């Protein structure tokens, strides 16, 4: 919490502001320029193989039904995963902030622990679980929900589960940090005035927590948007998204121009999402939680 105080004359902090220039320069050279370079496709490696103008590839991406489907699937998957994370994660965030008391440290640790593991480890675990003779099928057969094992690994469902598994902690933490700052007295007042628990939640708590849901939405959406490992190992080829295609173009087809075009579309989706964030969520700036 920064205090509002009159700055003592001339004191500009322990570090010269010029250091920002150094880091900024690093970022411009190695972050901004590569992206711009990719956008303009001006580098040699692509030119060497350049056989068609880039517009050919963009045309393909936006007019060929196969690729339109893929672009759509990429966004749809990301949105779907995010929504599931919200639904699953909100109660956990609620629990963490309101009901965990002494155990809150443990809960946070358990949420963060999976982030220490490699994504390959988690995806591997799901592959074992979703195998034909894996635990998930065993359970569903035992519970009479299925007659015979379902090939989860060949369907989008395993990829969705895998992504939710990886991303839900981010959602929980985002929602929790906003929930924490909600003044309990507001809820108490509502209860005193006669509102039921559910009504209090719907009219008071939930609207106040929307900021957290929004932040979580952006984080999870962006991460889901760019993921390809989970889809490579779990989706079974049934679900194709842009990142996966970029990976395949790079490793199998070696069509770098196409990969470049796809990566730009993916980038556009990400930027679009960020723009939405700017418009819809109030940002608190440097002084608040970034």
């Amino acid at each position: 919490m920064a205090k509002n105080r009159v700055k003592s004359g001339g004191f500009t902090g322990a570090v010269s502001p010029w250091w920002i220039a150094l880091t900024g320069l690093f970022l411009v050279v190695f972050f901004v320029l590569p992206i711009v370079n990719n956008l303009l496709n001006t580098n040699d490696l692509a030119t060497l193989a350049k056989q068609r103008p880039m517009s050919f590839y963009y045309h393909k991406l936006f007019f060929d039904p196969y690729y339109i489907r893929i672009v759509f699937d990429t966004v749809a998957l990301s949105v779907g995963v995010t929504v599931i994370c919200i639904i699953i994660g909100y109660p956990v965030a609620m629990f963490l902030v309101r009901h965990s008391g002494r155990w809150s440290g443990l809960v946070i640790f358990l949420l963060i622990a999976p982030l220490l593991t490699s994504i390959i480890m988690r995806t591997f675990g799901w592959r074992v679980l979703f195998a034909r003779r894996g635990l998930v099928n065993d359970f569903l057969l035992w519970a009479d929900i299925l007659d015979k094992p379902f090939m989860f690994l060949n369907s989008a469902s395993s990829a969705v589960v895998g992504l939710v598994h990886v991303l839900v902690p981010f959602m929980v933490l985002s929602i929790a940090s906003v929930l924490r700052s909600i003044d309990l007295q507001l809820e108490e007042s509502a209860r005193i005035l006669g509102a039921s628990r559910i009504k209090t939640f719907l009219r008071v708590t939930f609207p106040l927590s929307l900021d957290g849901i929004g932040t979580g939405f952006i984080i999870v959406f962006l991460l889901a948007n760019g993921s390809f490992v989970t889809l490579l190992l779990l989706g079974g080829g049934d679900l194709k998204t842009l990142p996966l295609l970029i990976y395949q173009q790079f490793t199998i087809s070696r069509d770098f121009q196409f990969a470049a075009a796809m990566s730009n579309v993916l980038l556009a989706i990400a930027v679009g999402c960020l723009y939405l964030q700017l418009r819809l969520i109030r940002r608190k700036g440097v002084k608040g939680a970034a």
Partner: protein
Amino acid sequence: MLLYVVLFFIFLLGPILIVVAISFTETEYVAFPPKGFSLRWYERFFEYDAFVDSFIVSVELAFATAVLGVGLGVPAALAVTRGNVPFANSIMTFLLSPLSMPLIVMGFALLFYLSALGLGVSFLSLLIAHTVISLPYVVRTVAGVYRGISPDFEESAAVLGANRFQIFWNVTLPMIKPGIFAGMLFAMLISIDNLPISFFFGSADTNTLPVVMLSYLEHQFDPSIAAASCIQLIVAVIGLFIVERIYGLDAMTPAS
């Protein structure tokens, strides 16, 4: 509600524990529940050159990324937070912007860009790429910790006549140390597990462990991946433990 939360954590931690269990199986194939108990897959990990070499590269890279990330990130974070800089918010947003980029786009773009610059596929390129994506974590963590510290200390030192370097070295630095360590830890974790970026810079000398694990997994499905994952996890946990012992987990969470 407690039941729901318990189920949630079973969901969250289950697959990980399963992999740990699988790594100890005696069998030739992936078995869950594991049959027998053996360390053979861990031995296999150390026998397989590609795993060991890439593991070493991963660790070296993680350290280098952390150092470079801190070197670039700490001064910038401090300066933006309290340096009376115009457009501080925008600059901070810019410093944090790599967070929002799809990693695969970053990797792809950086590969071609660095190749055009003549750096191509090399450890240096990997280092640069990893630093770019870890930098926001360092900046955010350090800025968060710095914000939580009262400016009084530094101002007192200034009033007492200390010059800028003295203030930084004797007053600021000791107070933000937890933030720096946390930032380094984040940078290392991000780097060690990174796949999308490392993948583009793969070659005999510059393969990182996740890249090797991925290609292994695409061709073979045996418990050595489980063992490799566990080893990686142990390294991460040790890192976290060290920081926790020195500074405690609370000190690492940015003040809000």
